[in-house]
């Protein structure tokens, strides 16, 4: 079981992305790297913002890095950010990412039309995240 957020969790996530036929199909035309920002919640074991970067290309993840600097992470084509506990809700499927964006709970930076055209791929990324056996850092 991997702790979220951690490099080990990201590695398992990437492995599952690359093994997913559903994602490969849904993201067949997707081109663009993505930074996830897990915003600090010191009382929940996340003392600082954590940036994770994934290079997503035509249904595969060509590479990923955990705990990149904000300067590095900001270079990504898309950035999605939320406090740690919101991500926990997303991974547990208690918060639908589309609803989360509409409610302003998840904040996206990048070309929104591309995201809207690829909403199925975005949902698959959430499905995959939910499938990683996860122990949350505030529940250890």
């Amino acid at each position, binding site marked *: 079981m991997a702790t979220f957020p951690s490099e080990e969790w990201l590695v398992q996530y990437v492995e599952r992305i690359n093994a997913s036929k559903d994602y490969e199909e849904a993201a067949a035309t997707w081109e663009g790297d993505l930074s996830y920002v897990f915003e600090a919640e010191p009382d929940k074991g996340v003392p600082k913002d954590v940036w994770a970067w994934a290079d997503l290309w035509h249904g595969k993840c060509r590479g990923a890095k955990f705990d990149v600097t904000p300067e590095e992470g900001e270079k990504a084509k898309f950035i999605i950010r939320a406090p740690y506990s919101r991500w926990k809700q997303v991974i547990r499927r208690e918060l*639908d990412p*589309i*609803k989360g*964006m*509409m*409610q*302003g*709970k998840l904040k996206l930076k990048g*070309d*929104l*039309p591309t995201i*809207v*055209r690829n*909403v199925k791929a975005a949902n698959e990324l959430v499905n995959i995240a939910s499938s990683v056996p996860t122990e949350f850092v505030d529940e250890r």
Partner: protein
Amino acid sequence: MIVVDPGVEGLGLMLAELVRANVERNPRCRALLRAPARSINVRAPDAEVEVGIVLGGGRFRVLPAAHARADLEVITDSGTLMSLSSTPLRFGLPDLMTMEGRAVTKKMLTGELKVRGIVPNLGTLIRLQKLLSVAP
């Protein structure tokens, strides 16, 4: 041209961003803003979000709350609302020749997608659809 009032978040920012991107990519979209101004509400009850829009008079203005009375009102779940933007259009309305267009039309017929005020404001609905469309 694209005006976002203070206090607008989430859905309102997304709608403004979609219109801004379309107007930038296709300057012909600017013409869609020139008609007389009409008030529009967009509501997604499952996400408990709603916004008011003023479309026309040269602007697409997003307000943080719905209008007390709007000329046109679109009410549906958040997923359908998102899919409306990627549904191919024909003459500004969902294209029945496509699977996505038929799915949207079916939702209108079954009440999963409600559009109030459509008859006197069909032109406004068409302009709204075109401004928000990201369909190829």
